[in-house]
Every structure is written in structure tokens, then in C-alpha cells.
């Protein structure tokens, strides 16, 4: 009997999503794409993209990628630990609600208020700075070589919204770890480490990776926090874009749009890497 192959129209199911995305995101962003090919007079040019390799722009992108990687991995790691602690660590259940709702707020606590909060904490006259100096005679700057106004400082501040984001997104995955699996593995004589290595982590890895990519994007697109903290002295891609499009001094919107396109490219590369990692982790799941 011949097998008839019916054309599948399964993709129709995602049409509403793509339609909305085109209407609310694609069309408005179309101006960005067109604008990146235009110069100040409105003529088409590739100069903006050529300019991407000049000045401090490459350094800005490298810094952004570095900070985003650190806060994605670090944020993912400690965020996961925190989620584990409140969901599976045997703590009272009200702590879980408190941490979840707090995470909801903290995940969006960013920009100038967050930067100032850390200035008040770890700045030159900050609460913790003074405490360390008065109690232990330890100067953050002299003895530990630490200043808040550095890439490290930015990363420490970024964790404030990265940890909660990880906690919130990974929570359903941790909830999905069935109690029975832990019991079954213990019945088979597995230690906690073996349980995690062979059962829990393989199941969780796709979700962890997916959330880390979210953290990366979140950090990559952040601007106001780092800007307030370092006044633009640390070159970051989003700050560089803001200078061209928003500021009082430079005004080369075409270059700004080209840089935004550059960020899209970086994000695409990261998504590709993540997809590849996903497939490998699925192999780990099966192994």
C-alpha cells in the first residue's frame, strides 16, 4: 500500500504569535534596520557598518559580552542554588512564597535606583565599606583592591536582577522533579551526588541552559544601571548606542542602529551556541 504524505499545516499554530510579533516588534524595528543603512542625509550607505570596527566600539561589544557571560553563568549558578534551597532544601514553605514574590520584584529592580542602592552600600562612603573599615580596619580600595566602579562592580550589581530571574524561571523545573525519582534512586542505593549527576541534572540541563540564555540577553540589553554606576567610563554596547541616539553630544543615529544590529548578531550567535549545547545535553540525557 502506498503511503500518502499529507502536507502538514502544523506551522499554522504559531502564526498568531508571528503575526503579533511582526505587528508589535517587526514593523517598528524595521525602521532600525533601514536606518542602519542610512547616513545623516538619508542616503543608503554601508558606512555605519564599516564604522563598527572603529574607535571604542569593538571594546564596547567585548565588554558587554564578557559582563553578560559572567552574570549569566554566575547568576545561573547561584540562582539555581537559591531556587534549590527554597524549593527542595526542606525550608518552611512560607519562605518559598516570600522568596518567589521577592524575586519577582528584585528581577526588575534595575537602573538608577539599583545603582544608587549599591553606591550607598559599596561605594566610597557606603554602608558595608564603612562597616569593614570601622570593624576590621579593612579598606575595600586599598586592601582588597576593589572598587564598585569597575567591570566587577557592574557584575556584582547585575547579579541583583540575575539571581531572582533564575530563581523564578527554574522553579517550575525543580517542581517537576518527582519525589518518586529521588525515592527510587535512593532505593537503588544511589547517593545524593549520583542522583543529581544521573537523574536530576540531565533532566534540568535544558531548562538551566535556556534560562542562562535569558540571563545573558537580560544582561546584554541592560544599560541604565551600568551607565549610572560608571558614567560611561566602562565601554558597553548599550551605552554606546544610547550616546548616538539619545545624548546631547553625539548624534549619529545610523551608527546607533548599526550597533543595535550588531547586538542582534551577537545574540543570534549566542542562541546558536545554546541550541547546539541543548542538543548535546539531550544526548547526555540519553546516555
Amino acid at each position, binding site marked *: 500500500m502506498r503511503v500518502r504524505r499529507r502536507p502538514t499545516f502544523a506551522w499554522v*499554530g504559531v502564526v498568531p504569535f508571528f503575526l503579533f510579533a511582526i505587528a508589535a516588534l517587526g514593523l517598528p524595528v524595521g525602521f532600525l534596520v533601514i536606518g542602519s543603512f542610512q547616513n545623516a542625509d538619508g542616503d543608503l550607505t554601508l558606512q555605519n557598518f564599516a564604522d563598527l570596527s572603529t574607535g571604542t566600539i569593538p571594546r564596547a561589544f567585548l565588554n558587554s559580552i564578557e559582563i553578560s557571560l559572567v552574570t549569566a553563568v554566575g547568576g545561573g549558578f547561584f540562582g539555581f542554588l537559591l531556587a534549590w*534551597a527554597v524549593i527542595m532544601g526542606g525550608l518552611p514553605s512560607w519562605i518559598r512564597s516570600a522568596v518567589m514574590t521577592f524575586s519577582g520584584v528584585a528581577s526588575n529592580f534595575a537602573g538608577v535606583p539599583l545603582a544608587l542602592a549599591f553606591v550607598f552600600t559599596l561605594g566610597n562612603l557606603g554602608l558595608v565599606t564603612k562597616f569593614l573599615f570601622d570593624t576590621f580596619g579593612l579598606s575595600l580600595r586599598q586592601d582588597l583592591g576593589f572598587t564598585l566602579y569597575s567591570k566587577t562592580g557592574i557584575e556584582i550589581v547585575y547579579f541583583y536582577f540575575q*539571581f531572582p530571574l533564575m530563581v523564578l524561571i527554574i522553579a517550575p523545573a525543580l517542581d517537576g522533579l518527582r519525589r518518586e525519582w529521588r525515592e527510587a534512586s535512593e532505593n537503588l542505593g544511589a547517593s545524593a551526588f549520583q542522583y543529581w549527576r544521573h537523574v536530576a541534572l540531565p533532566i534540568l540541563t535544558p531548562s538551566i541552559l*535556556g534560562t542562562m540564555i535569558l540571563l545573558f540577553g537580560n544582561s546584554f540589553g541592560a544599560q541604565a544601571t551600568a551607565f549610572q554606576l560608571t558614567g560611561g567610563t566602562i565601554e558597553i554596547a548599550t551605552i554606546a548606542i544610547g550616546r548616538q541616539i539619545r545624548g546631547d553630544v553625539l548624534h549619529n543615529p545610523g551608527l546607533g542602529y548599526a550597533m543595535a544590529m550588531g547586538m542582534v548578531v551577537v545574540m543570534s550567535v549566542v542562541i546558536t551556541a545554546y541550541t547546539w549545547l541543548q542538543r548535546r545535553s539531550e544526548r547526555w540525557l540519553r546516555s
Partner: protein
Amino acid sequence: MSGGVQGLGRLGIMASWLKPRPGSEGHRRRRGSLVAWVILIAGVVYFLVPLVATFQFSLRPTPTTLAYTNVLNDPKFSGSLLYSFTVAIITIFASLAIIVPTAFWVRLKVPHLRTAVEFVTLMPFIIPAVILVFGVIRVYSAKPFVFTRTEFGSDALLVATYVVLSFPYMYRAVDTGLAAIDVRSLTEAAQSLGAGWPRIIVRVILPNLRTALLSGAFLTFAIVLGEYTIASFLARNDQFGVYLSLLGQNKAFEPAAVSLISFGLTWLAMIVIALIGRGSRVTVVGAR
């Protein structure tokens, strides 16, 4: 031995979706472990100290609570809060309505489109808000759309843009939630009982996604309440974020009071959302 554990894991997947989900108390067999407490305390310290520092700073004026009274006595405070609450709730529902079916469909039927969908949902991170809002204005203020000419149209544009902003978080939360349940088996079981797609999504999938939906709702809510740039350029001056930044303009202590008040109010609102979300006890169809 490892094969046995995983094989059991898979059996567990097959067996346990039939049982009603116990909710959050499923892991309380062990006493609170020391490691968990240490991690929690470290987290609490990290998160609370900057807030305490901000609070301390906000109490420096004379009289001590001046910054707070200035903020809370402002007549437009409650009006803008209500406006933003409403926009946030609408955004959450609209976002869920788009994302949940899409994430479900991608997982179930069109996994090869997954990367494309993920790419689209991650784009709002990369597009600066100011570019997005100016693009929205350009497209939707010109004929034939002319949405910006009415208050309702501008409000609708605001909600639509916020839905876009919520995509990364909502999609990731829902997708993680779907990964934790066995979508295929649940769907097949429901279909074998005669349910159509809408019923499957609303009555079978959604109840199993409670944690994920709450996470997504929290994140969207926080975004909407704090958002400033898009609301400002769309002339939505009733938006709480816009209102707050106007209050704190060029003043020393008010911004600190404002950020703490906003933090506290948003947290309260989330506790309410969490309670509502917890309110409905649902049993999964087909549990016999």
C-alpha cells in the same frame, strides 16, 4: 546501576503524571538542610543590605520621614498606581494568551520552529526601548493605523508594546514549565477522551503550569509597573514609572524613598497575585 536509575526515572515520568500534582509541598520529606539555610541566609544578606542602605539614606532629611510624606501625599499617586495595575493585568493576560498556546504548539507539533520562536522572544532584550517606541509611533501614527490620535489607541499601543517586552520572560517561564510536565502524554490522553485543542490548553495544560504562570506573571507585572521610557514617549503620563521618575527628579532623598515605596508596593501586589493563583485547587482530568 546508572541505567537502572534512569530507567526508573522514565517510568516515574510515565507513572506520576497520572497522579494529582501535590503542589509545593512535594519535597518536604527532609528536614531543612544546613546547606539550604546557609544559601538562603547568604541570599537574604545580599538582597537586603542594599535596600537597608537605601532606606537609611532616605531617612536623612529633617524631618526624618519628609521624603516619604512628599511622595505619598502627592495626589496623583494612587491614580497612576491604579492605571499601571490595570495595564499590567491586561498585559499579563494578553501575553499568556499568545505565549501559552505558542509554546505548547512548538513543543508538541513544530519543534523545528523552536529556535525561530526563541529568537523572536529574545529580541526585546536587544532592541533598546527608545528605538522600539519611536518605531511604534512611526508605524502606528501614520495612516491607516492612526492609533496615537486617541487615548484608547495610545493605551492599546502601550499594552501591545509591553506584551512584546514580556515575551522573553513569559516564553522562558512557560517553556520551562512545559518541560517539566509530559506534554505529549497529557495531550494524547485528553484527546483520547475527546477534548479539542482549546479545552486541552485551558483545562489540562494550564493547571499544570501554575508555578510557571505565576513566575511569568510576576516578571511581567514588575516590568509594567516600573517601565518608564516607552510610557513616557507614548505620552502615557499616568503610568506609575513615569510618575515616579517625575517625583524623584533632581531631588536628593525622594528617589530613594520612591524606589523603596515602589519596591514594597510591587511586592505586596505580587503576594496578592500569588494568593489568587494559589486559590484555585484543581485536579487533573483523567485522574481515575
